[in-house]
């Protein structure tokens, strides 16, 4: 069809396997990550803490930040897979397996959520203030209002919802992963048709779960605050990060010798366009959420921004404007940049870093009006780093153990994806 004719390599081509150099990282990354996570938690609990709830809450908030960091990546990857099936997209087949690799981490992440569930049952409001029975009195919330709140924000109902979210998301992820893998062997077109047919309902379920999980897990950190847009905000950051993670994953795989002929500049260009689009979308949503509250200026709503715009979190808010929007916006604006894989990779790494700041900015101010000092920053960084190490190591270990290929080698749209050109 075009200048360079793409020859479809055989399915057992070595370049479709996880590169050995990456596979070897699985165990060190996993163990190192677990160790860092432990160190971070201990640091938070014993060095930072003076025995009160503050230290514990800070540590748990750091843990939640790290968890949500990995979870939002997987969540965005799940969305990526679903939406590609929903649109019957051809271009994305060569990068889809990378998304599927991160998507399949959701069941494992469900296990890492257990500590959060446990703290939700603690009476002291270790992580979620609503689990503290004295919250209403301490904050002057009228008893009637608080009673209504508690009908939703109760430990058992929270647990039920969380389990439902995780089980449903895991089910969708496993279903799509298994079908995609089975197609690697059989090449049945009906599998693609089935995945396409179920992607519509799956996306609906996904959107509801994402929104409510964001409400429950993050927004309820400030129980009296509400923003109906909050779910979309988390979704925007999540999908943005997922695309960045996919680009990083593909680039790393290629740099180790895998799928070098399959993923071309054109695919990076598309990923770059999506990154650019979601940078803008995130900003649009973030600003929309902010401007309504800012304009309305109602104390019940503004207090969330109050703690983030004034005091020591203020600079972070302004940094987000520049680092989460302006710089990547300008940096990804030109197609010449988006058509250079190394630059797309660099911007993706950058966006992955900034996403951590965004999440920390959402979670941490509820635990500490400052950063918790140097120890606090170290705690948050170590916990998230450890979580990421565990996450990546786990994925690599799983890929190696299951001998998962890094490309859906028998996908019926693979030739279309290989021949894809933007212009």
């Amino acid at each position, binding site marked *: *069809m075009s200048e360079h004719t793409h020859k479809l390599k055989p399915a057992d081509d070595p370049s479709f396997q996880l590169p050995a150099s990456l596979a070897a990282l699985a165990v060190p990354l996993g163990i190192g990550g677990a160790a860092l996570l432990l160190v971070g938690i201990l640091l938070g609990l014993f060095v930072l803490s003076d025995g009160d709830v503050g230290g514990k809450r800070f540590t748990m908030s750091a843990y939640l930040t790290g968890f949500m960091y990995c979870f939002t990546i997987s969540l965005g990857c799940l969305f990526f897979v679903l939406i590609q099936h929903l649109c019957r997209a051809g271009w994305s087949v060569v990068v889809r397996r990378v998304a599927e690799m991160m998507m399949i981490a959701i069941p494992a992440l469900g296990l890492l959520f257990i500590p959060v569930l446990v703290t939700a049952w603690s009476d002291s409001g270790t992580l979620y203030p609503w689990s503290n029975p004295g919250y209403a009195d301490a904050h002057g919330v009228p008893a009637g209002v608080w009673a209504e709140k508690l009908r939703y924000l109760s430990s058992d109902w929270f647990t039920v919802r969380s389990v439902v979210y995780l089980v449903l998301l895991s089910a969708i992820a496993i279903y799509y992963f298994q079908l995609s893998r089975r197609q690697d062997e059989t090449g049945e077109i009906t599998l693609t048709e089935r995945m396409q047919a179920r992607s519509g309902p799956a996306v609906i379920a996904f959107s509801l779960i994402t929104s409510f999980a964001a409400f429950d897990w993050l927004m309820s950190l400030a129980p009296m605050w509400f923003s109906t847009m909050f779910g979309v905000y988390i979704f925007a950051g999540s999908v943005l990060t997922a695309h960045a993670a996919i680009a990083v994953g593909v680039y790393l795989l290629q740099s180790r010798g895998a799928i070098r002929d399959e993923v071309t500049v054109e695919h990076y260009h598309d990923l770059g366009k999506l990154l650019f689009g979601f940078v803008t979308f995130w900003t649009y949503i973030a*600003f929309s959420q902010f401007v309504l509250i800012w304009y309305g200026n109602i104390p019940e709503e503004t207090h969330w921004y109050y703690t983030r715009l004034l005091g020591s979190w203020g600079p972070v808010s302004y940094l987000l404007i520049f680092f989460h929007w302006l710089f990547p916006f300008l940096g990804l604006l030109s197609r010449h940049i988006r058509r250079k894989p190394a630059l797309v990779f660099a911007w993706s790494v950058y966006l992955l870093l900034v996403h951590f700041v965004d999440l920390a900015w959402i979670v941490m101010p509820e635990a500490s009006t400052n950063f918790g000092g140097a120890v606090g920053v170290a705690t948050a960084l170590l916990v998230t780093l450890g979580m990421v190490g565990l996450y990546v190591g786990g994925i690599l270990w799983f890929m190696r153990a299951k001998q998962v290929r890094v490309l859906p080698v028998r996908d019926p749209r693979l030739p279309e994806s290989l021949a894809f050109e933007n*212009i």
Partner: protein
Amino acid sequence: MTDTQEKKLHGVYAEFDAVDTLLAACRRVRDAGYTRTDAYTPFPVHGIEKALGIRPTALPWIVLGCGLTGSAIGICMQVWMNGINYPYIISGKPFYSIPAFIPVTFELTILLSAFGAFFGMLALNRLPKFSNPVFTSPRFDRATDDKFFLYIDASDPRFDHNGVTRLLGDIGGTEIQDVYEDNSSTRVPTAIKVAFGVLAFLAIVPLLAVARMRVTNSPNPRFHVFYDMDFSPAKGPQTTSTLFADGRAMRPDVPGTVAVGQFDEDPNFYTGVDLDELARRDQTRAVHLVRTMQVPEAEAAPASGDQPAAETPWLAKNPRPVSLALLERGRMQFEIYCATCHGNDGRGRGLVTARAQQILSSAWVQPSSLHQETLYQDVYPDGKLFSVISNGIRKMGGYGSQISVRDRWAVVAYVRALQLSQNAALEDLPVNRRNDLSRRKAEVEQQLAEQAEAERRRAEEAAGTTTAPAAEEAAPAPAETPAEAAAPAPVTPEQPAATEPAPAPATEAAPAEPAPAADAEMEAAATPAAEPAPATEPAPATEPAPATEPEPATEPAPAAEPAPAPASEPEPTPSPEPAPATEPAPEPAPATEPEPAAEPEPEPAPATEPQPETEPASEPEADAEPAEEPAAAS
């Protein structure tokens, strides 16, 4: 095809069966150095631009430029409108409030970007284009069906008919055809012309309908397309609202708050009272006064009884430095808030007063003249005047919620200037103004003397030679001519009284600018000008004596507003007709009889008179001007 030889060659195209052969051919043509080429395919072909060697489009730069322009317009427009040109507090946000500016900026960016993309694309493609010579070839129709075409334009610098034909054949073109300039008629088909004509006509119809509605009356109520835009649910001033417990739609200032930009640390500035001194004399009152500034008046416990223990130590001097700008500001505020009752000259004869007298309102108490000696600065401190403006006195309401603190002090300064204007000597004027004024004064005196002379002569003639009509004709003549020369014409009839009111405007208008007034002087003189005229008549109106004379002539002029009827009526002096009849009647009993005096009465009376209406109709217009002018001139 015999006549094709005469036609000009436009280009050559070749037909291909498959997209791959087309792409290969495109590359060959590109490599052969042809640049004015084009390919036609039934569907978009990826990579064909590269194969044809088409350079990347400049469209992104156009869009970027348009987008940046939109952003700049959006930001600058809002900064200018809300921050500079018309600073207006919206929702308690600052004038320059970037978050509030972003939505509009964003929308304008998108709008202009979209325009740039759409119109830029059209322009770069040289669209719209109604026809293309390749359409003349019947085979070319299959470009939208199942064939692929490669076209080389004759204007290409390397174009050579035989060479191109051979090249296209070599690279696999199955059918090679020449394309000639389209020589068919360019005349617009009649049907299209007619259609355009009809459309144009139909487009005019709504405009005609609107135009017709503009000039016709209808008993039906107006049709409101956007009802809630025509009738905003917003509450007007002085209306009620169920939204608030006190039922007032207008919200008073929140106790203890100061409007943006008006905060001043000094409580004296807000009260007009020297609080330190007051605290020394009467501690409780001082505390009370400060508290009323901070809590609602109802909550602040009343001070010790009604009688103040000691005299209030008002600020004797205006705390704001007096400058011309301050006086101008004060004059503006005075004319907005005070002059309607107190009059522009401060004599207590504003429009409301005039109206109240016109309708013989019994409830109206004439506002104080600001020119009483008891209100002068030496006996009435500035702080007390400020307090009266802020809180009201007797029947006058407080203007504290309407005039800002700083402006109230400006009004105080202006009132002082007004008072001075009534007592200024010629020496108070700047030297360069004195001569001018002396000259004008001399002119006025001379005219007065002439008129007195004329009057005297007329009286003599009337008494002596008894040629009455002639005298009567002669009399108005001298009165008119000076009027046109911007002389104080209306003064004539009031000669006996002239000694009193005539100089009044003179002194009033001129020294109204005691400060080193530059050009503000003429304005200052012009504005009080409307006053002196009314100032003269209400006074005589109460006295029955001058009513016999044609004096009311000057009276209607100040009414300025509706009352054209009375204006026409007295001026012609057509003998004691209805005018004196209606006027003196209500006079004796203005206070006792409020009812029958209602406004409609005086108006219909003159209206029925045909005589004054027809003839003098032109005259009053000419008179209305002199009525205002003489004051300005003097």
